[in-house]
């Protein structure tokens, strides 16, 4: 049996904040995140087309008979984070199990970005051999949601004479 005048404004603001803000946040950041991702992919595709001629391989065997002019280590790293909505989806996945599809693109982007940077480090190389990747998941202090992934990619850039 509260005083109705005070009840209305105060209670409505409280309700709107408690329920509305997280939901709005999820939707808002979900859309922004999707946009950022699309833009990144567009840029990735362009850069990949530009460096398509430089191959990367995991094998260590080089072409027999060809003389090697230079060989050096190249390494890059990248750390990419995901948006609030995708993290929320991953938390729901933790309940039901199965493939966490919302994180597929996160790792894909990180890998492709790292490999592109590797190629861009040695544009005049003939081939990058013995590619290795190291991934580390960065989580929040509560260890329940993955904040981002860091990826280190390294190989040997070979230039044939």
């Amino acid at each position: 049996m509260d005083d109705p005048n005070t009840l209305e404004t105060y209670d409505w603001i409280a309700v709107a904040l408690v329920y509305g803000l997280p939901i709005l946040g999820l939707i808002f950041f979900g859309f922004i995140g999707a946009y950022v991702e699309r833009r990144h992919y567009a840029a990735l595709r362009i850069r990949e087309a530009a460096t398509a001629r430089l191959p990367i391989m995991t094998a260590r065997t080089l072409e027999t008979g060809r003389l090697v002019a230079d060989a050096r280590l190249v390494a890059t790293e990248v750390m990419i984070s995901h948006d609030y909505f995708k993290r929320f989806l991953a938390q729901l996945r933790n309940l039901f199990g199965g493939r966490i599809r919302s994180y597929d693109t996160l790792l894909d982007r990180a890998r492709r970005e790292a490999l592109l940077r590797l190629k861009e480090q040695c544009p005049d190389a003939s081939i990058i051999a013995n590619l290795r990747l190291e991934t580390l998941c960065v989580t929040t202090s509560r260890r329940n949601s993955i904040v981002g992934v860091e990826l280190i990619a390294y190989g040997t850039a070979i230039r044939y004479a």
Partner: protein
Amino acid sequence: MTPPVLNDIVLTNLETVPGRQIIEHYGLVSGSTVRAKHVGRDIAASLKNLVGGELRGYTELLQESRAESTARMVAQARALGANAVVNIRYSTSSVAQGAAELYAYGTAVKIA
């Protein structure tokens, strides 16, 4: 493309240095750094966590860590009298709450 980096010591993650011959090897050399990876505390990173995208600050931190680990490894190799480090590998792992280690290791050799 300039050949060897880091002051005349050749670095590669192949087992040999292509075009050169390994005369002797001196065993394992390594370098490591531990850095804080508590992303949640950084305000700029927290904003990026909401919309996604690259966390440039942390990428740079990673870069420095890697350069540092590699430098430590090379210092060990130099102390052994080697002029190349082959079969280099990097490894990252979470060592404690909020900390990650970057470990670089390879074999120190003398090449002709």
